[in-house]
């Protein structure tokens, strides 16, 4: 499912530009093609370079296990797993940057420095959002936290949820390197963030990286969907359909955002992320009021 989101995003962008665009399943073909290829590994790198992408994929996958998909409970959940969730993302980022720095290329160093700088802004936003949700639901585990707004849709819950949704949307775009923050299609190393870090990875390792980034978008999108559409129906297969539909709509909306906006200047990106922090913080203040 996750790479399909990229397919939908690309299709939306192509439609906006009046092109036919690549097939919906192209991201899958790309990953399969990459998996079959050989690898070129630079002599200067160490084991970190090879293990980085694998560890990234694993941490993102484990983080995904903590999030309830649609109306179903997450496979794992315990009190306080929201902190584990955030720092699993942190760990995956650490290994991506570490394996990028391992090559010693100056472009990759630049990319890593940008990635870490922007992550420092998006993490507080995520925590403010989680704190607001914790206050709203009175529970410290992601599974029950994200499910609870639907049970007690009280008077003063909608306004903070709107704020949290805006904030989380920006965080999602930043974390999965979409356009206002980073352009995934850029060909100039100077303007890259995430792409610059994976320049030296090839073959299966690059396939793993692309799958991991799709998975990251999918997981953050799932968290966001719980905030945007807290309603569920009691029939379970309708819920699945609804969830898939919501996910596709979210992908289309990302495609629209990418088509109508240009990438921000590097120095303006922190403004956007700080406004995301502010939105989440306001949501938090509104609940505490």
């Amino acid at each position, binding site marked *: 499912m996750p790479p399909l989101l990229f397919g939908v995003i690309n299709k939306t962008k192509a439609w906006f530009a009046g092109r036919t665009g690549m097939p919906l399943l192209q991201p899958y073909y790309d990953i399969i093609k990459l998996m079959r290829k050989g690898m070129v590994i630079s002599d200067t790198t160490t084991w970190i370079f090879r293990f980085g992408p694998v560890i990234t994929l694993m941490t993102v996958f484990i983080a995904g296990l903590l999030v309830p998909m649609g109306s179903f409970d997450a496979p794992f959940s315990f009190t306080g797993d929201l902190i584990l969730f955030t720092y699993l993302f942190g760990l995956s980022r650490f290994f991506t940057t570490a394996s990028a720095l391992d090559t010693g290329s100056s472009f990759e160093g630049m990319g890593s420095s940008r990635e870490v700088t922007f992550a420092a802004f998006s993490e507080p936003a995520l925590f403010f959002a989680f704190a607001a949700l914790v206050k709203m639901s009175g529970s410290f585990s992601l599974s029950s936290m994200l499910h609870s707004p639907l049970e007690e*849709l009280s*008077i*003063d*819950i*909608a*306004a*903070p949820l*709107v*704020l949290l949704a*805006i904030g989380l949307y920006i965080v999602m775009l930043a974390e999965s390197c979409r356009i206002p923050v980073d352009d995934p299609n850029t060909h100039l190393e100077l303007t890259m963030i995430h792409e610059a870090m994976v320049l030296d990875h090839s073959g299966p390792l690059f396939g793993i990286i692309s799958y991991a980034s799709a998975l990251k978008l999918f997981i953050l999108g799932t968290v966001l969907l719980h905030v945007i559409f807290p309603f569920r129906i009691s029939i379970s297969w309708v819920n699945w359909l609804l969830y898939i539909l919501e996910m596709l709509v979210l992908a289309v909306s990302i495609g629209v955002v990418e088509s109508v906006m240009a990438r921000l200047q590097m120095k303006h990106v922190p*403004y956007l992320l*700080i*406004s995301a922090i*502010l*939105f989440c*913080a*306001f949501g938090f*203040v*509104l609940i505490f*009021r």
Partner: protein
Amino acid sequence: MTNLINSLLVLILALNLFALGSSRIQSIIHTAAIQGVLLGFLPLLVHSHLNLSLLFASLTAIMIKGVLIPHMMSRALRNVQIKLEVEPLIGLMPSLMLGAIATTFALLFTNQMPLVAEHTGKLIVPAAISTMLTGFILLTTRFKALTQVIGYLILENGIYIFGILLMGAMPMVIEMGVLLDVFVAIFVSCIIIGKINKSFSTMDTRMLSSLKE
């Protein structure tokens, strides 16, 4: 219903921050326009029963604030051929922070205010205060005349939100009168900005103090 009103007001708060954080005058104009349209829908939601005059008033407000005034300002902007607020008195980041602090205090202080019971759950008062303060910040910290006009418009939006509290007591005619005043004021100032720019080839209001008789 309260949920819907609060969501709308929260969007207005978000637009306030956006207006403070962007440096392109055109995008600030768009922000003010969207805010005007959202505000036009507000009286329809606050009143439980719809009547024709209310619908008319709300439609007029949307037309004037969402279409007419932004259109005029965009034209004035094209005439003077500038795009950016280059150097505000305080930078974009500090003014964004100032706006955020103002909004937070507005949210926190509303609890201390003695409000009528039917308004306590709603965010009308904090949204009004925060929008007015945003207008003040834009008015005082930006030097381009056009941005100051937008600041004035956002300030008026804040007062309009306050006016919604009195909707039952105040006849719609007063609201319409205010709307007309705003329209005329902005119409005149857009012309004046064009003239100032033509005569002095700048829109910087700091230069006005150097005028002599």
